[in-house]
């Protein structure tokens, strides 16, 4: 350390006479570091690696390695308790593509894909409308206690998923659930929000909407606030009503944000797990798999007592491909929208 100080002091002594009102360092271009480490000069550029090492090491252990290992065991009839144990594949029967062949013939896969997209649809689009409506209300310049309302919108989002699922599970109870009691006032028969396929998807979509509508409203609000006031002023000078202002000024301004929320929603939608697990009460998603989502299917096969780890890994790979396809669609849609903006 002493050598470092020694080498840096002469250089600062040289600059000593200069007034300290030099321009801010970040305005300088390509300035050499003032403190140098002689003997370590060749390593200077490598310090960065050290700083990102904690993440990279953790990612390699907990992110990359499981991906590679599960890809390998997807080709085995893997049983962690048989063979040599540990990570060794010794004694594990290699089955080639059997897991994938079986999986593509497994009707549960298609049920799970259908359920996942159904839940995604019913949780994304109504939520979008609610979020934009909430944001429009919050944008109102005469609204009082703005921070309070904005904060309160985030409360559902910081609630534990499990707590949400348990509370909503009680609200959706068939015999004494509050929603059925209220529906009963209007002469609607008790709806079975767990066993009935469509109703159960609506129940899950409601939980997701409740949790995320406020969060997305804040994103929409930020985007709305970025729309210049002049546009509204000129619109009202032209005689536009509030609705017309919303339709022709606000909504076009939100286009990119809508795309963003859609993409984030798609990623979340493909990962829906805790809500259907708690509502169904079993890992298989109910008696006709009406609540089985893709991630639940993976969990059920690998960790739900079935002991089919290789099969579960194969499901994981299929999910990866589904995500890839969805991302591609997202990418194409986004590019088209962005291109539309330029015109």
């Amino acid at each position, binding site marked *: 350390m002493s050598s470092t100080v020694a080498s840096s002091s002469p250089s600062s002594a040289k600059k000593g006479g200069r007034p300290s009102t030099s321009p801010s360092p970040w305005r300088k271009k390509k300035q050499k570091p003032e403190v140098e480490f002689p003997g370590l000069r060749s390593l200077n550029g490598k310090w960065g690696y050290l700083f990102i090492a904690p993440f990279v090491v953790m990612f390699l252990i907990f992110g990359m390695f499981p991906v590679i290992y599960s890809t390998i065991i997807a080709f085995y009839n893997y049983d962690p308790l048989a063979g040599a144990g540990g990570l060794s594949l010794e004694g594990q029967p290699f089955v080639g593509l059997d897991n994938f062949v079986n999986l593509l013939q497994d009707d549960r896969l298609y049920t799970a894909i259908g359920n996942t997209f159904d839940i995604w649809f019913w949780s994304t689009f109504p939520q979008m409308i609610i979020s934009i409506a909430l944001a429009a209300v919050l944008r109102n310049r005469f609204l009082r206690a703005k921070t309070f309302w904005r904060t309160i919108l985030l409360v559902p989002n910081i609630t534990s998923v499990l707590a949400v699922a348990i509370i909503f599970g009680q609200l959706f109870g068939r015999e004494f659930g509050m929603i059925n009691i209220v529906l009963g006032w209007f002469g609607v028969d008790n709806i079975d929000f767990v066993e009935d396929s469509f109703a159960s998807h609506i129940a899950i979509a409601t939980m997701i909407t409740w949790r995320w509508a406020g969060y997305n409203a804040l994103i929409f609000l930020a985007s709305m606030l970025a729309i210049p006031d002049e546009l509204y002023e000129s619109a009202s000078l032209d005689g536009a009503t509030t609705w017309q202002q919303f339709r022709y000024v606000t909504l076009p301004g939100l286009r990119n944000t809508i795309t963003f929320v859609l993409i984030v929603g798609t990623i979340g939608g493909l990962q829906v797990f805790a809500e259907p697990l708690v509502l169904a009460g079993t*890992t298989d998603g109910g008696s*006709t798999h009406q609540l089985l989502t893709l991630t639940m299917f993976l969990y059920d096969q690998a960790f739900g007592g079935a002991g089919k780890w290789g099969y579960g890994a194969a499901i994981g790979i299929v999910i990866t491909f589904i995500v890839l396809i969805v991302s591609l669609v997202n990418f194409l849609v986004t590019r088209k929208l962005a291109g539309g903006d330029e015109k």
Partner: protein
Amino acid sequence: MNIKKLAASIAMVGLALGAGVSSAPAATAATPVTLTIWTFGDVIEPNLVRQYKLIHPEVTLQLKKGDIDPQQNNMITACNSRSGPADVIAVEVSYSGWWRSYPNCFTDLRTMKTSSANANATKGVDKNGNPVDVTYVDSVGVRQPVGTVPSGQSATTIKSNYLPWRWEHGVAYNDSVIGIPTDVGGLEVAYRSDLMVKAGLVTAAQVKNGTARDVLAKKWPTWDKFIATGKTYMSKLSAADKKAGRGFLDSVGTIYAAILNQGTEKYYRNNGTDQGELIYKTNPAIKKAWDMTLKAQDAGIGTRIGQFSSDWNVGMNKGTFATMLAPAWMMDYIKQQAPDTAGKWDIADLPGGGGNQGGTQLTIPSYSDDKQAAWDFIAWYLAPEQQLQVFRTYGLFPSTKVIYNDPSVKDFKDPFFNKAPVGKIYSEGILKLKPIFEGKLNRGIDQAFGAGLGRVISGKKNDKTKKPWTSKDSWAMVMSEVEKLVR
């Protein structure tokens, strides 16, 4: 500081992290000893833990409570890496079939011998080091000493204390003993005597002199007769009662497991291999239990309430259902959930003769660091005297058959259950059962059949036929689901 040193120290941190993940904590010292116990529910009772602390101040019992299914995954992970911070693990009966295929994950308890640690277990030492007598107060207020365990006891020598069919749950396919049974569920019918009187099935005088439970048991010696009795009960209900969803039995789905457990075979046949032979397609007992359950459903004797739901707890108080199939541990549950119904409940024999639901074994994993201390603890905890204490203080039914003739079991009458001789009723039912073989994927197959019955019972629509699920269609789906499971 130079970069090499820095890199080295980071590598050290990395190594330490890696080691923390893979290696077991060092608890190999002879004294003091920490025994880590993976358990769930009330398998390990706190009173006995306190007593063991008095006998063995040097032993720390560390209870890690979880749920059955997540714990199963933890056990798989631990056995896969041949390491895990556990010395004693509680395995539920529904997973005992799974673990009998993997005896290498456990210590063969035939090879263990108790030390002299508990030979004089009635004497202990308190916190200040003063000698104390280790005793407890039983349900009638009498102070009882705890039991002692002589040295040199192995699984082979204590086997004769236990119910043979319960003992089998802890035996692996290669005959090694991997678990010792704790309690036994048993299964009888809990019923509301006030509702039975109202329906005219028994008279108030019979309830008062305690003969009502025999009268009812004679009405339902078989499941057919049980359903017929249920129909009679339903015919006595008013239209308003029916509209309010009242029924004879809380949940008809429970009949399935009750009947299946009365047989000798379920989904597997023991052929001495680690996998067992699958017989779920051909075993007539399964179809019989299935059909009987749906017969009860068609007879309309059940309510639409699911067990252990909040609706169920409410129904227990309100008398929404007149009967439920109750393991011994359920009595305590009823007392807690419906304290105001004291004296109204009673216990009668199960149709078809005896039944069981639930139970647990204590095992020592092969990767335990302190097998000797663990075996000393298990042998003490599951000794007949301690099981008797658990029955006296918690109402869990012991699987040590040698104490069924003890007056505090045989003559035990529960005031909450209209002074029913529950000790006698349950022990007689339990002794009628034969060993039943639990195969590897027993729990998963059970869930598939349960879901199959659920589809029909809930009146759910079949998406293909647009009509409610029929027994035949649902059975076909169960077959295809189980085929995928065992593939």
